[in-house]
């Protein structure tokens, strides 16, 4: 903008607009009127995800067909036997953990 203003009205308006208004407690009044701070519950979502995963795992373990063992499943996978019931259960468990990790990472970012 050109600082040399010849029109008196133009000059008057610009000078008036540049004149600061003293705060006089205004900013404090706004701060006081803000809604209360959000409760710091950053732990809540990870806790919910992990506890529901634990409950799901417990139910899966309780109702799984007899003879399925996660340890056996991982041993089967190590021997490249991926079609056994234990190996499938181990892969399902690993997939569930990966989903949980992805949810937590997405929430964090």
């Amino acid at each position, binding site marked *: 903008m050109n600082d040399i203003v010849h029109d008196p009205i133009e000059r008057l308006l610009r000078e008036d*607009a540049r004149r600061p208004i003293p705060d006089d407690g205004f900013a404090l009044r*706004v701060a006081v009127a803000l809604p209360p*701070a959000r409760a710091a519950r950053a732990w809540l979502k990870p806790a919910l995800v992990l506890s529901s995963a634990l409950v799901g795992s417990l139910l899966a373990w309780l109702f799984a067909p007899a003879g399925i063992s996660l340890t056996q499943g991982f041993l089967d996978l190590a021997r490249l036997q991926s079609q056994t019931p234990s190996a499938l259960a181990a892969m399902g468990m690993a997939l569930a953990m990966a989903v949980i990790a992805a949810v937590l990472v997405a929430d964090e970012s």
Partner: protein
Amino acid sequence: MNGRPEPADAELVLAIVAHDDRDAFTRLVRRHESMVRSVLRRLSRGDHGLADDLAQETFLLAWRNLRAFRFDARFSTWLYRIAFNAWLSDARKRREVLLDDEAQAPVPEEPGRAVSAAERIDLERALGCLSDGERAAIAACYYADLTHEEAAEAIGIPLGTVKTHILRAKAKLRAKLAEESR
């Protein structure tokens, strides 16, 4: 002074959105309150009490809607729009507000007035004589420092109407000045 540069508006907005940072918001309020309050004083025909109530409402609305700020305009422009809409909705509760009232008789030009005479004018009172649309255009372009295009978008009237309002408002202020100096 510790020599650290003041954080930009965008940094403060991000701090508020990410961490509910109230100190950052207070810094934004202190940075922009003069503009918001002077715009609202002009729009409210010099009613400082009403203007400050609307300014407080403006900042509270900004706080609530900060996540909607998209950084595609200046933060001050976004804030001006909130302030203008707060004034408009308050004014419409009391009366009809015409922002694009172009069909008025032309105001005679009073050229060649001295600067010293202009300084005597009670600008606040003179601005109160303008129409709603003229005051809105003057508040946007001078007190909120918007371009004519930004003002047209914020007020919701055509660009040509903003330019007409500015010209007519300045002519009216000039006439008022001439009247006062007689």
